[in-house]
């Protein structure tokens, strides 16, 4: 069996999910200029929501994605209105601290509700896999991969083809310019916060069927989406996708050849390299800058 090929396929499958998971974070960062440290916990919230729906309503985590999306959208708008809108008037550092506080709040609230045990969503097709040539492909991973790509592509279409989506990009590119064509930036901020959070919640559904989770896994996920955004660059969906695949390759290959404990180290080392040699990320180009 060809180990390299197997690792390559694993990286691709994981990369698709990483791209989708990070795209909401990058969107919020790029448009609102908020580095949301609670983003990882949002993903975990989505995972627990889909676990809850699976247990008590018998709803498959894939089928409950729309529920997570809608809940996340409302949650994102609420948090933006109640917390971030006020914090954004102060200095950026305050936003960072508040989002960290939010992360602590969410993970501890989940701990009270669900205890710290590792939970998993055991779907009936969870263990299935098939052989493609000499490569073993897990059905769940393939399903998550396909869904992630579809949802990311849907977001791409939304941002590039609809009036609201274009307005989101316009506000990210030039806030004053957007106001001068008649766009209301506060409204766009709300929609973007809702959309980004909806993506985090939805990716929680997928995360929940990929692996077990505890209330405190959000921190590591935040590190990952941060890494992906730095690696790929900000301001475009394509950047998050490039960063997502790159992180997946680094993780899969380094943990196989160097050991599981090394993967975060290698990823962070690559991030430092990118920051030194390509500070705008792999795909970040000068006209797709973050919000001014």
């Amino acid at each position, binding site marked *: 069996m060809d180990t390299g090929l197997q690792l390559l396929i694993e990286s691709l499958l994981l990369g698709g999910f990483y791209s989708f998971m990070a795209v909401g974070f990058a969107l919020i960062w790029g448009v609102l200029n908020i580095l949301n440290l609670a983003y990882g916990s949002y993903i975990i919230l989505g995972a627990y929501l889909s676990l809850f729906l699976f247990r008590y309503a018998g709803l498959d985590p894939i089928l409950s994605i729309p529920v997570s999306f809608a809940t996340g959208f409302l949650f994102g708008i609420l948090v933006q209105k109640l917390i971030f809108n006020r914090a954004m008037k102060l200095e950026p550092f305050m936003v960072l601290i508040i989002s960290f506080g939010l992360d602590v709040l969410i993970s501890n609230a989940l701990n009270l509700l669900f205890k710290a045990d590792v939970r998993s969503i055991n779907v009936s097709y969870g263990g299935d896999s098939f052989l493609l040539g000499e490569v073993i492909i897990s059905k769940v991973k393939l399903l998550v991969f396909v869904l992630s790509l579809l949802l990311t592509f849907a977001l791409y279409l939304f941002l590039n083809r609809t009036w609201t989506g274009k307005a989101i990009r316009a506000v990210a590119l030039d806030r004053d310019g*957007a106001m*001068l064509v008649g766009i209301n930036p506060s409204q766009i901020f709300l929609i973007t916060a809702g959309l980004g959070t909806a993506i985090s919640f939805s990716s929680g559904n997928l995360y929940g069927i990929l692996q077990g989770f505890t209330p405190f896994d959000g921190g590591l996920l935040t590190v990952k989406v941060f890494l992906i955004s730095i690696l790929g660059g900000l301001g475009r969906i394509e950047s998050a996708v490039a960063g997502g695949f790159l992180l997946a390759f680094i993780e899969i290959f380094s943990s196989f050849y160097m050991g599981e404990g090394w993967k975060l180290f290698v990823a962070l080392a690559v991030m430092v390299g990118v920051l030194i040699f390509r500070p705008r990320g792999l795909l970040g180009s000068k006209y797709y800058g973050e919000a001014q």
Partner: protein
Amino acid sequence: MRVLEAKEVTTGYGDVEIIKNIELYVNDGEIVAIFGSNGSGKSTFLKAVAGLVPLWNGTLHFGSERIDELPAYERVKRGVALAPEGRHLFLGMSVEENLLMGAWTKRDRVKQNLDKVYGYFPQLKEKRGSLAGDLSGGQQQMLSIGKALMSEPKLLMIDELSLGLAPAVVDSLAQILTRINREEGISMLLVEQEVSLALEISNRAYVFDLGRVVDSGRSDELIKRDSIRKTYMGLA
């Protein structure tokens, strides 16, 4: 009939007052120019009319409606458009996308307005797929004006039409502006440091100095006045 009427307009940034008690009006169909030295508050006044800077005192009327308490995006809907200093184009979007964003408040007539803008600026049509950030300075200025036209303005304000552009480019832009003014009946308020150009294409002009209106009148009279020629045009 007045399109714009500013009374006692005072504003600034932070604690610093930039303009004080500005009295200025634009009649329907008129081209009005504002000139004056750097830091005299010309750009700040346009920003105040567009709603990017809140007033400290005074009023702004647009037609019969008072607009100084409306946010910028509401003023665009009513027909106030600004091609701002620094242009504020969406550099990461294509030329056509920029124009389409300009039509944010007039989405039902995008097609006609796009044809109209391409009619006035054929170069933009050729470059429709290029990124705005990759255009030349003159083309960016065309795009900035075109984007403003997409909102079907009643008042088009242009901040520093000639800044950084070659004289030939400025001349052709000025000709196009007077055509737009004549054919579309759009009133214009221009901030311009090229005083001879400003006086040539405008009906009336205001002179700003240290945040106040120090002179105003018909452009064909101002251009003959010795004090103006000496101070602002470097002529004897």
